[in-house]
């Protein structure tokens, strides 16, 4: 049976990982390749590296980092941040990334999704959506959650699906950084309405939150950053817990042996 995935996300600025709380206040958390390798050894199913550098040199540093990740880490990884045209996608795939995540560029020019799907296949195209809920409903935001758009979450996610996105990475801005759980209602609706996997993002604070995203939210994968970076939740503990809760997760060899002996 296909496993539900646990995905640590590493925000990278000038070659170092950082993590914002509600997209502001950045704190340091180490070398991205080292951290990625540690997560891989602990049983992370995929990794996401987001480039939050604005400068040209920073971009070059990021591309070098992608090559190092590809050379050193043996699980799939996605890269995102600043990808706005086909050429950027090609550069990241050539550097060894398995998938690319596009966000603002897709909202500005949705045809980019069709182009990526056509040239490289849907499986490489992750469409990331930052959305915020108010009385009117869920609205999509541009530029890391700074600029509101006229697009609603559900209609945009559906359009991305139709255009050939391989996965939707949905971040709830209401939940991000506050550690009170994922946006399970919205996740559930996305799962029902889309024909591609949905990755839950924003809000992980406890192991129960992951369980809820998979059971209530019907998410295919859950992404988190600070709970992993600051070792508040360890991936082996989380996998063990989810397995006990009846959720199909990929168990590492040591955990399999443990399960057999019980």
């Amino acid at each position, binding site marked *: 049976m296909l*496993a539900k*995935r646990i995905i640590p996300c590493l925000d990278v600025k000038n070659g170092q990982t950082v993590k914002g709380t509600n997209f502001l206040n950045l704190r340091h958390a180490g070398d991205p390749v080292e951290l990625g390798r540690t997560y891989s050894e602990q049983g992370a199913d995929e990794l996401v590296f987001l480039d939050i550098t604005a400068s040209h040199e920073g971009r070059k540093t990021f591309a070098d980092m992608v090559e190092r990740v590809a050379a050193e880490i043996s699980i799939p990884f996605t890269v995102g941040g600043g990808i706005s045209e086909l050429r950027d996608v090609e550069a990241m795939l050539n550097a060894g990334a398995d998938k690319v995540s596009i966000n603002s560029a897709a909202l500005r020019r949705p045809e980019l999704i069709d182009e990526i799907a056509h040239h490289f296949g849907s499986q490489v195209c992750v469409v990331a959506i930052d959305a915020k809920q108010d009385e009117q409903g869920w609205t999509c935001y541009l530029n890391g959650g700074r600029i509101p758009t006229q697009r609603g979450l559900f209609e945009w996610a559906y359009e991305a699906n139709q255009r050939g996105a391989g996965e939707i990475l949905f971040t709830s801005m209401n939940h991000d950084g506050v550690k009170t759980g994922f946006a399970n209602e919205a996740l559930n609706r996305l799962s029902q309405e889309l024909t591609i996997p949905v990755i839950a993002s924003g809000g992980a604070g406890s192991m129960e939150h992951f369980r809820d995203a998979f059971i209530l939210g019907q998410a*295919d994968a859950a992404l988190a950053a600070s709970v992993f970076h600051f070792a508040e939740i360890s991936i082996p503990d989380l996998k063990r817990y989810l397995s006990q809760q009846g959720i199909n997760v990929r*168990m590492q060899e040591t955990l399999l042996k443990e399960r057999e002996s019980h």
Partner: protein
Amino acid sequence: MNVAVVKYNAGNIYSVIHALQRMGVKPVLTDDPEDLQKADKVLFPGQGEASHAMRYLREHRLDEVICNLKQPILGICIGQQLMCRHSEEGDVDCLGIFETDVLRFQPQRHEDKVPHMGWNDLKVHTPKSSPDELFQGFHNGEFVYFVHSFYVPLCPWTIAETEYILPFSAALHRDNFYATQFHPEKSGSVGERILKNFLAL
């Protein structure tokens, strides 16, 4: 050891090369028939579209070369599919090493998303009570990484199966020809063990 990786118009070949390098092997990436013939082991990886890939192989005479190799060769993902008789993808005749056809997944329920992408568990076949050499040291229930929309049905050469929509061939073996639908090069330590087993054949 002299390891060759078949160079053709498929994507994602570098992840196999990286995986081999992590294991201390320096493979050559080549479409030169002679280099392929004299290698100790050959890998035939990649992601792509079957009819385009077959056209390239035929134009470069690599179809005959691959079929006539005597040393162990491992097809990965599209490599496995190209080693079969025919593929529904582009309705193309393939290499025919495994006498079986490649079919497209037909979703049955809303949850059946295509491509089949992610980590799924393997059921390794154990004829004569032991698994194939490729799966030595493999623990039942271990997961490997898949990305594909077409599959090889269960057939006489199936050495491991996985269930997604239906049970299908996760790995095949006939004589010196080995193939996996999943990506050992992206399957963490489990995948590395499978690659090591192949190199040790």
